[in-house]
């Protein structure tokens, strides 16, 4: 029996196929960084898609409601002339209005005189228009003559008149809040706490960052001009708060000034730099601190004055008005403050590198509940997403947002 004995070539192949080489440590750093970038891009893309879908949904929903609620009574009114006179009952084939003409007013003006005109209409068409309430021969004299193909035969002589056609003037079956339906303008005032944060905070899953959202007060004076019963334009003036809280930021001792700690943090909104004054901090006998690091909590408050502009579509549920709002806002920076709390005390300053302007998209659902006379209480789930990053750094992809359920007062005039 012959055994195969591997030669130097086979040994070489075996060795080279199993050999291991440790890569430089920097490779993992780059892999980790790239994974972070991919995650961030995915989340930003997701957020944009959600915003886009929400906006489309609001727009389509609003427009659909607008057109759904907008029933034009002209067409129905044109069928009022279908009250036929008795003299036409015995006449030979009456003039017919074809179905294709149903969408346009009949060429005969509606008056008492020409109500005598005979119009023969298929019953199905009248059902479709909602003009006929129900179909049942009310009078036995009519039974023999009636068939759906013959269409409507209303006879004024018959007592009581047949009820194939509703002779009532059609009305819109809507329970509109009269005050809001009448009003051309509405003034609303809001002042509320907003929860503010930014996209990189909610996207971060690494657990490294301790950036958090922040509750801040903001307010808005808003004017709405109703351009039709269901559509309106909203504009106003808003104080828009944005901020964040960062916990456990490390302050380093620079070594030269033993008691001086320095904080330099690049946050999502800009750079924060604090140098604590020389303070008598406890030292060990050898003059070095027990730990070179002390921790700080940072809160950043950024306020913009903004002009919002929104399109709103409205429908009413009983007396309560529900509006879908979508639009944007642009504004300028008016207040920029940070607060640092640490063992040395509290320090206040300005975040550096914050853009002096803001542009954002807004979506909201505004629910107005009538109170007294022309006053109404407005409850408004509200979401605002910054379309530009606050940080002046070109590569910053962090977008601030705030959300609130706003409460306000509306006055219609």
């Amino acid at each position, binding site marked *: 029996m012959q055994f195969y004995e591997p*030669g*130097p*070539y086979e*040994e*070489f*192949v075996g*060795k*080279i*196929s199993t*050999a*291991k*080489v*440790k*890569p*430089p*440590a920097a*490779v*993992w750093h*780059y*892999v*980790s960084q*790239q*994974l972070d970038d*991919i*995650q961030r891009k995915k989340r930003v893309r997701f957020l944009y898609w959600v915003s886009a879908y929400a906006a489309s949904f609001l727009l389509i929903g609003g427009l659909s409601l607008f057109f759904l609620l907008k029933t034009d009574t002209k067409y129905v009114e044109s069928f009022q002339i279908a009250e036929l006179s008795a003299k036409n009952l015995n006449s030979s084939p009456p003039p017919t209005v074809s179905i294709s003409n149903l969408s346009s007013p009949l060429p005969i003006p509606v008056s008492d005189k020409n109500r005598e005109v005979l119009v023969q209409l298929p019953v199905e068409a009248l059902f479709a228009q909602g003009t006929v309430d129900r179909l049942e021969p009310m009078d036995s004299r009519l039974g023999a003559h009636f068939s759906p193909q013959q269409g409507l035969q209303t006879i004024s002589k018959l007592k009581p008149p047949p009820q194939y056609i509703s002779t009532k003037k059609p009305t819109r079956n809507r329970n509109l809040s009269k005050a809001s339906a009448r009003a051309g303008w509405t003034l609303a005032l809001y002042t509320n706490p907003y929860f503010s944060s930014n996209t990189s905070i909610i996207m971060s*899953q*690494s*657990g490294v960052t301790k950036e958090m959202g922040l509750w801040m007060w903001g307010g808005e004076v808003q004017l709405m001009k109703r351009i039709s019963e269901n559509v309106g334009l909203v504009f106003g003036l808003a104080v828009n708060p944005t901020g964040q809280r960062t916990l456990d930021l490390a302050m380093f001792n620079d070594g030269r000034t033993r008691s001086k700690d320095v904080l330099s943090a690049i946050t999502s909104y800009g750079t924060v730099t604090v140098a604590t004054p020389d303070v008598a901090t406890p030292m060990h006998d050898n003059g070095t601190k027990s730990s070179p690091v002390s921790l700080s909590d940072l809160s950043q408050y950024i306020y913009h004055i903004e002009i919002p502009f929104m399109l709103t579509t409205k429908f009413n549920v009983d007396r309560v008005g529900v509006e879908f709002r979508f639009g944007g806002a642009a504004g300028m920076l008016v207040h920029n403050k940070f607060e640092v709390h640490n063992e040395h005390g509290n320090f206040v300053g300005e975040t550096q590198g914050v853009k002096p302007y803001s542009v954002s998209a807004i979506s909201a659902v505004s629910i107005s509940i009538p109170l007294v006379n022309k006053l109404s209480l407005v409850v408004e789930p509200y979401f605002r997403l910054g379309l530009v990053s606050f940080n002046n750094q070109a590569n910053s992809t962090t977008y601030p947002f705030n959300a609130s359920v706003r409460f306000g007062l509306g006055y219609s005039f």
Partner: protein
Amino acid sequence: MEVSKNILERCCNNERKAQQLLYEMYSSAMYGVCLRYYPNAEIARDILQDGFIKVFEKLKTYKGEGSFAGWIRRIMVNTALEYHRKARDFVDVEITADSIGDANNVYFDTDYQFLLKIVASLPRQYRLVFNLYAIEGYSHAEIASLLNIAESTSKSNYSRARAILREKVSLIHKFETYAVLRARTI
């Protein structure tokens, strides 16, 4: 060494520590694979980095069929072949201790550096065919489709690569045997 299911699940959930653990488990072996295809530290590092990004992105598609090491290895090989297709391997081959890794690299093996130098001496296409056929176990038909060459070309490339390597390895072997004998006589 097979990775635990728990680590894989955590990696799928984008837990960075689990991902780092997985990287540390397989990076040495995979860097070896990358260097075999591209015996240039810079390119090999790029392939390793891109390969691991793909591993983490496609981890959810790993069904647990077959060894996980083999699955990662296939991804690395495919990434290396992508580099080949994009013709990014124009950089001259250079294998030195510095280019392979850190100076204090505990895994660094001078033997391996020497072996890599032998592989690096092969022309680029011979090297790829040799790696794919002799080490990864692909058939010539598969190699032909992977490298977009004729099957006969793959066969002849491998045959020449093997001849070159045999010659070099047996020469080295002879020198080694001679050195051992000489050491004994001394």
